[in-house]
């Protein structure tokens, strides 16, 4: 199923208990989507939007305050802060989206298998328990530091740490779906296990998984920023919000805006993702889903 179809399915609310959202919630979700769209557009068209080369070092203009040339001022190397922020979004969004896609795909595969084929269940789930037990930040820094700091290894590290959450949700959704009467009905109609998965289980599990994907996108962005901030992430030559903050912190007493601006970008992005996830979740099924998500 194409993502567009999946989103279309999410928008059809009527399968679920009809619920009118509080007015503020819809406004919040619209503004969150707008914020995300804006940040995505900035990152995608960075070469056309950014006023300066984000890596151009100009020692004569170190730590400039905001003026007409440098709208947000410059950092300790004389690089334009605004341009760095715009380019920094690329890494965050790439890691966020990439992780969401990779972790959801891998987690779904593992979770569906565990939930539907009992023989594989305990092996897969014990492995997932073990991966959940290792705090994701430790796992991620260990992988990146041992395997070398590159975009791929950061992506891999973050995706690996997020996969077990998806697997658990996918498994529990599969188990729920398996016990649904309409799945039993399909069995009595002679539908094969794979057809049941495809026709009955996956479509009903997709909504919650997409919601979880939004949260995963958010936590991947945070995780990446922590890696960058600690200096254990992507090559510091590439601007990311995390390493802009890390470099700016030395000058926090002189020029706090070097920390505040990237913090704002980062927080607003993650906040928007959370709002989007929350509103979508409340739309799908207000109560049961909250509980299931809370278990993850």
């Amino acid at each position, binding site marked *: 199923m194409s993502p567009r179809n999946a989103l279309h399915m999410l928008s059809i609310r009527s399968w679920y208990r009809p619920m009118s959202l509080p007015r503020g919630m819809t406004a919040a979700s619209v503004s969150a989507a707008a914020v995300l769209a804006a940040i995505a557009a900035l990152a995608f068209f960075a070469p056309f939007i950014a006023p300066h080369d984000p890596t151009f070092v100009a020692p004569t203009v170190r730590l400039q305050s905001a003026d007409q040339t440098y709208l947000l001022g410059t950092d300790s190397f004389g690089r334009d802060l605004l341009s760095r922020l715009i380019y920094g979004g690329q890494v965050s969004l790439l890691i966020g989206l990439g992780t969401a896609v990779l972790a959801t795909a891998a987690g779904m595969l593992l979770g569906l298998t565990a939930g539907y084929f009992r023989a594989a269940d305990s092996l897969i789930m014990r492995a997932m328990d073990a991966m959940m037990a290792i705090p994701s930040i430790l796992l991620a820094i260990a992988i990146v530091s041992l395997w070398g700091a590159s975009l791929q290894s950061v992506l891999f590290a973050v995706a690996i740490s997020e996969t077990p959450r998806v697997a658990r949700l996918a498994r529990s959704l599969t188990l729920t779906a398996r016990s649904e*009467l309409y799945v039993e009905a399909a069995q009595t109609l*002679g539908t094969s296990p794979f057809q049941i998965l495809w026709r009955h289980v996956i479509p009903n599990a997709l909504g919650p998984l997409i919601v979880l994907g939004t949260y995963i996108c958010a936590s991947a962005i945070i995780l990446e920023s922590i890696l960058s901030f600690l200096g254990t992430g992507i090559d510091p030559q590439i601007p990311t919000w995390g390493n802009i903050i890390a470099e700016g912190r030395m000058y926090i007493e002189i020029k706090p805006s070097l920390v505040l601006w990237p913090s704002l970008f980062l927080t607003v992005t993650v906040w928007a993702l959370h709002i989007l996830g929350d509103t979508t979740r409340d739309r799908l099924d207000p109560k049961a889903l909250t509980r299931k998500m809370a278990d993850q």
Partner: protein
Amino acid sequence: MSQPLLQLHGLSASQRDGRKLGRPVLKDVSLHLDKGETLCVVGRSGAGKSLTALAVMGLMPPRDMAITGGAIRLQGEDLLNANPKRLRQLRGPRMAMVFQEPMTALNPLMTIGRQIEETLAGHGVTARRERAIEMLKRVGLSGAARFHAAFPHELSGGQRQRAMIAMALILKPLLLIADEPTTALDVLTQKQILGLLRELTAEAGTAIVYITHDMGVVADIADRVAVMHHGRILETGAAADVLAHPQCAVTRALIAAGTDISVKPQNKNLSGEPVLTVEGLVKTYEAGKSLRRNGETIGAVRGISLSLRSGRTLGIIGETGSGKTTIARSIMRLTDPDSGTIHVGGTELTALSGLRLKPYRKKVQIVFQDPYRSLNPRRTIGQSISEGPCNYGLCRKTARERAQRLLTLVGLTEDVIDLYPHQFSGGERQRIALARALALEPLALIADEPVSALDMATQATVLQLLRDIQEKTGVAIMLITHDLRVAAQMCDDIALLRAGRIVESGSAAQLFSAPQTAYARALLNALPGRPAKHDNKRRASG
């Protein structure tokens, strides 16, 4: 008598959403109740009965409902304008309530004893433990100290409802509101609980507002009746008058559904060949995997043999947990029986699985109890109905045509084929589920409580449809039900089930006119609204 105990005057209420008022749910409801009287409030689900009760108790969910007018007076005291503290003082000693579902209505993490004592503590009564145990004895829970320390899940449904009654009556309230207290229980337990309520309230002079949808119960206990429909009181009067001379159609329909036992006329088709034969079927569940009651595993089947003939209907009757559904699930191979054989058209099925089973799956089809859960909400009904034929190699176009034909057969129209399940009512969904089962042209159809999730009026039409279809197609039907009235209307043969064994079987006519076993007689007697032929003195707890 100067003033009635309870008086509702022009009570109106609406749904609310924030500050906006929505659909009205109670319209100008006026009732009165004298001391010691029993008033039955009758109506279909959604008629506003429970809401009226909650309004009296001051327990309407304030976020979802708002009272828009009228007055409620208890002994002349205005309840709608009473402050919360005063309402709390009244709940318990003056008015109390027993709820429908005793499992969820009791706190699962608190012992029965503590929950009862809490009522006493809230009203400053001392010697609480003694009084709680005394009350447990009076509601017939022998070995009261043991029940005092028990948690709700350790009790059976009937025992829980007794505990609920103990909790409600411990302060000898003047008014007891009972909201369908026996709907979740089987007929025998229902009869005991009704007896208990009558006995205890008569002693203390407690007046009862009894909410039910079952006119049989009304005939048994009511002094007066009020019939509700769509939030309005349609008629009210002395029970005997209303039952004998109902004024409006709704009342007549409720009476017809609740008190008649009409036995199906003799089926001419005596020589139908056996299409489905079950022999020595055993299925027990591991301890710990299912609920247990008195050491017996619920839902187990211990050696069942039966045979289903084409063109005839076999009724499997039994209480909750007697193993009826396990039989159906074993035949459908949704669960694997421990031992026994299942023959369909001459082939033994229990040894087959996977692809080898597939050719036989289509010969027996099932309609499940819950029409809201048995259709995939994301597939159109056309897709659902043609799923079976497509699995057996029919091309989509032909399968769709067959689905259209079946939709007309079950009394719907062809043009609904591309709609989704949520666009249909419960009764219509059950018709769709039936069409889906028939799409494979089965020899036998298992109907597992096909109407118990539907309201009375819809029940009748779905049952009629089942009879018509049997006449047209000659399919053999196995009807699983707990409802003797449904069984009487539908079945040619009956197998009466108890704790996983068949206690009586034979033709329906015989079972209903001359039952052979004591259990069958007890069941028939326990049917509400029938004059007792054989008085049953047995009073087991639970």
